[in-house]
């Protein structure tokens, strides 16, 4: 499937799960029809570096860890 079409499907039907950063790179996780898609940005919401897909719920772990941090900081980092 052409990449542009993949992006369009993800934009229209993907359910946003969360966002995280590694150093300066922003990564956004979506759920799409029973699997997960992580979008690695070169430039946030502009240039996509790569897409990684997985059916494994392990992919949720770094996003779940952020929720614990959020709770401890009184919701200041909530998104």
């Amino acid at each position, binding site marked *: 499937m052409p990449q*542009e079409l993949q*992006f369009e499907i*993800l*934009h*229209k*039907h*993907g*359910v*946003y799960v969360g*966002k995280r950063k590694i150093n300066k790179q*922003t990564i956004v996780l979506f759920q799409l029809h029973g699997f997960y898609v992580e*979008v690695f940005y070169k*430039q*946030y*919401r*502009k*240039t*996509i570096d790569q897409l990684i897909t997985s059916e494994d719920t392990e992919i949720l772990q770094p996003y779940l860890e952020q929720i614990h941090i959020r709770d401890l900081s009184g*919701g*200041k980092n*909530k*998104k």
Partner: protein
Amino acid sequence: MTQSLPPKNLVLYADDDPDDIELVSEAFSIYSRSIELLTFRDGIEMLSYIESINPFQAAPCLFIIDINMPRLNGKETLRRLRSLEEFSEVPAVLFTTSTLPWDESFARNFNAGFVTKPLHTNQVHQIIDQIIDHCSDEVKKLIRRRKGNSDN
């Protein structure tokens, strides 16, 4: 001779994500001759500003509201905004990561647009155009004419 500048159209944008604020501010910068974009970190900040507007200040022509925000989320912000008589008809857009049909129908019920945040650069300007499409015809014409002039 003094020449007064035409007033800018005021757009208010509430979002707790600094990356998205930066993205939208940058995208709106091409309309800077005709639009002044004011940003807020959540719905409470935006509503406080709205309630402080006096009759001598410019009234907003458009509200852009993220859904997932701390303190007061975008849906509740929109609901409260619509309960204020003077802002009940001002165009508003829920600008969100959500693609959920019930969020879209909530927006429709409160006479607001619904725009999903862009995934990548090709969608950014298209989405800003979609947002501007929610402005009144008069404002839209002015914004696009001035943008056209600045492109030349």
